[in-house]
């Protein structure tokens, strides 16, 4: 049992390492997704007339919308790696279990998202002059929300990967299901920054954790039939 578990963990690490290495070599995320995300923050400032007080007040919402947009691009890219000719067969032959493949890809996406979020936090602090506070709650929010976004995104991008118009299908499938994450993460970030009074952030973090857990489980279970029927 313990041996199987460690084999599984090794497979997860292997897949995550593969995706991260591919990213390190191609630099698509670093050279395209990250600048795009910062650009969204800049464009939002244009749209909101660069009004400082307003920008501070809405920065949690803008932050999570930007993260969501970036995540849509990122999971699309992550799924595209697997539908390159021959990759599917190679993966099946490698004997890596579909659940390990899913978890590995999810972890790779989550790690990339966390890096992107770190940059965006700094960008928001500088561009919008949002005072950063509530580090523990903020970090917990970042971790749980990112896990949920990566878990759902990796699953949906994989299943949309062979559909017609997958670029527009991924956001159409993802955004409604991410509604609880967007609401919860924004409220929790609000509470962490102290920009909103009242309700504490921790119930939201719990909701985000339940969301992440639900969709990680669904993804790990659903990846096998998805691979078999593609």
């Amino acid at each position, binding site marked *: 049992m313990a041996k199987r578990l460690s084999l599984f963990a090794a497979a997860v690490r292997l897949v995550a390492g593969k995706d991260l290495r591919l990213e390190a070599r191609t630099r698509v995320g670093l050279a395209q997704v990250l600048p795009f995300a910062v650009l969204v923050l800049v464009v939002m400032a244009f749209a909101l007339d660069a009004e400082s007080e307003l920008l501070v007040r809405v920065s949690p919402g803008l932050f999570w919308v930007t993260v969501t947009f970036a995540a849509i691009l990122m999971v699309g890219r992550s799924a595209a790696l697997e539908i390159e000719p021959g990759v599917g067969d190679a993966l099946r032959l490698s004997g890596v279990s579909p659940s390990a493949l899913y978890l590995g890809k999810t972890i790779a996406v989550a790690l990339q998202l966390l890096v992107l979020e770190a940059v965006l936090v700094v960008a928001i602090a500088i561009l919008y002059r949002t005072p950063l506070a509530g580090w523990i709650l903020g970090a917990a929010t970042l971790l749980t929300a990112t896990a949920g976004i990566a878990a759902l995104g990796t699953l949906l991008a994989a299943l*949309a990967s062979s559909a017609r118009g997958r670029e527009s*299908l991924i956001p159409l*499938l993802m955004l409604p*299901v991410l509604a*609880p994450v967007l*609401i919860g993460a924004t409220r929790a970030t609000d509470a962490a920054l102290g920009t909103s009074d009242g309700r504490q952030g921790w119930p939201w973090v719990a*909701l985000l954790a339940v969301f992440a857990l639900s969709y990680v489980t*669904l993804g790990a279970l659903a990846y096998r039939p998805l691979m078999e029927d593609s």
Partner: protein
Amino acid sequence: MTTAHPTHASEEEASDSAGPTGTGSVATRVLGLFILVGGVLLAALGLALTDPDVQLGERMRPIYVHVPTVSAAYVLFVLNAVGSAMWLWRKSRFWDQVAAAAAEVGLVFLGLTLLTGAFWGRITWGVYWDWDARLTSTLVMFLAYLGYVALRGSMEDPAARATRSAVVGISAALLIPLVHKSVDWWRSYHQDRTLFGQLDPSIDGLQLFTLFLGLSLGMALAAWLLIHRFRVGWLAMQAEEGGLDDALAARRAEAASAADGVEVEAGGVADLVAAPPAEKEQP
């Protein structure tokens, strides 16, 4: 609620002699008749015969169509989740088609819920839309199943389509409690009570009967539409596969007769398909 159901005498005869020629059957025709009669009765009761509500007044009247549509929609979405799970578990194409039909019909019901809700909102609160907890979660679920239907529409391979949409169906069903919980917290932070707590209509006998009539009609109509939509989906699947099989048979026949040195005319293909030549004389 109005339904059109095929009751032409000519069609009845045709279906007696040559099997079904459409998606109607005796059961759905009887059900359809009940729905038609019930719909007329519901309209008469809901629009005229019931008294105005004590608190809401005439503004109660859209409720008689609004509540049935939302109830039926959620029943259909649960059915979609069941069908999705059954496909993943048993690879049952029957259940895959049930899931597809339930999602589409449910989307129609939920879309109407949103529309009639907006009208109701306009006459009771003065606004078509408010970010009320119920409205928001209804809208999110509508968008989620819109994605499900869009995914089904953009894939050709039946097995891959069934698996992928099944996963989306289950993820949408998983969303129902999560989205309700989140928007509940979200909006209760802004307003201390939900709207329905305040504007609870006090209902008398005939109003209650009308509400129950509406609910049962909504379910009956959901069943009627589900059966027809299922049969349409099943036929579409058969037409696709049949088309492929027929084309293969025609090719085979063509090859066989070409080997015999016989020209196959365009019109002759159908005959060959209907009565495939015995497998003889393989070159």
